[in-house]
């Protein structure tokens, strides 16, 4: 098994676990973390896809995509955390979301 395949499998595992958690978790913070891990799993897959053999340099495109993806994920997480605070402050419960 190559390192790239191993990474891709770990990424897929992370993706599936987080998807499961996102659906079943009740707590808002847990769900925000789950959706973050979901993104991380996807990014691990993308990094692994850039592998082009032991002697070739990796494909830069998937890595550039990951960078953009991280920027998007960070902003979305920031917004999610801010909203979660508002939900709690206005008396909303995690289960209602």
């Amino acid at each position, binding site marked *: 098994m190559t390192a790239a395949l191993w990474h891709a499998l770990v990424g897929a595992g992370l993706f599936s676990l987080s998807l499961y958690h*996102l659906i079943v978790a009740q707590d808002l913070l847990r769900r925000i973390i789950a959706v973050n891990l979901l*993104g991380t799993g996807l990014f691990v897959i993308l990094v692994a896809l850039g592998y082009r053999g032991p002697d070739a340099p990796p494909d830069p495109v998937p890595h550039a995509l990951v960078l953009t993806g991280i920027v998007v994920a960070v902003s979305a997480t920031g917004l*999610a955390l801010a909203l979660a605070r*508002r939900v709690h402050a206005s008396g909303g419960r995690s289960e209602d979301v």
Partner: protein
Amino acid sequence: MSDALPAPDWAVLTVLLPLLGAALAFVAERQADRIGFAATTGVALSSVMLLLQVAGGAPYQQSIGGWAVPLGIALKADGLAALMLAMTGLVGLGVAAQALRTMASELPPARQGTAAPWAFWPLWLLLLGGLNALYLSADQFNLYVTLEIVSLAAVGLTALSGKPEAFTAAMRYLLVGFLASLLYLLGVALLYARYGVLDIGTAQSLLRPEPVAQLAMTVMLAGLALKSALFPLHFWLPPAHGNAAASASALLSALVVKASVYLVLRLWFDLFGPTGLATEAAGLLLGLLGAGAILWGSLQAVLAERLKLLVAYSTVAQVGYLFLALPLDGTERGLAWQGVAMLALAHAFAKSAMFLCCQIVQDRLGHDRIRALTSSAKLPRSTQLTLALAAISLIGLPPSGGFVGKWLLLQASLEGGFTLWTAVIMAGTLLSATAMFRVLVRFFAAQPDDPVEAEAPPPGITARLIDLVPFALAAVAILLGLVATWPLMVLQVGAGG
């Protein structure tokens, strides 16, 4: 004319103007409404110019920074994209005009922890820039970024009303949107890993019906269905659209939902269709979900207690019609594709008009319970008329744009001998007529003991003009049906393949 100024690149302006405006409005909050409205007007003008240019027969194409595909990223606008851009610009202009007046009164005054009215403008401009970039993008990854911009701005607009329910709805909307975008991105990653391209046009000649591509198509369409609120993934939409501020609801329902449906159509007819990935079974499945959306959304609209919730559920149903193009047309653009494009355009104008009317109803009557609506003197006649006009198009009665769209869908379905889809379209129309007439019939009931209230000072001329904005939007939805041959002709530009 060789010494004349070169014509501006209208398409690029539709993306740059709102982004610049958003940054400016964010910094200069006191002037946010003026900056916001000026930028929106500029975008509306640019998108109409682009539409006229494309209607001349030549699809628009541009490589950003002069870098050609496959190295660079292409911007493209065929007839459909140009029509969607113009729709976004014009509906946006109408909603922005109304927001100039209502945003200040509708939102609670800025306190610690609530949004100030000016925050509407940067969010709206960001949304506008994201939507326009989405319609212009021909690159799968660029599309992912625009989807996220649209989502984040839409979540902000949902939360803007400051109601506790709006925060909860916005939170759910954010999680759903995040998940949907990541599913789409997974598909993009899989396709890139297998074929090494991101440009849709280039990928078209490379994709083959094999497991990787099938998996990619499945997750991409699943993500987009979630974002389009396709039944049964619609659960997040009614609370989000029903609890946002009216201007925000109008934008979310008329424009934001269209973006992801547009992307489904684009991928289906440009990428998955020509490569044999879009099978009959996949089309049938999406069509059945669409049918579910039509029936369930219309039924919920019939049962809704509040006007705003009725209008929100009607959006769920309307999204369903848009998905019928997939089973009806198969993989070639045909009658149903044209019908769906018309429906999408007419819905944007009619639905935004309706949501803006909800605002007027709420303002003047202090509630929006359907049972308690009457033809009271407090409600301007123009609002009642606008609701009726918008309803005509949403139900699909002649001579509206909604009628032409449904007519084309029905024609495609009758010609193809699809009894199931014909029945669904008919049943959905009957249900939505029931829902809309429940509201309209209230206006024929004068309330006998309506106390004559003290005469309010007559509104100024600007205020009266702004009251006419929803009417103008609804009138466009009707007009679209009268001049339907023109948009249908524009649709054919660049639709060959």
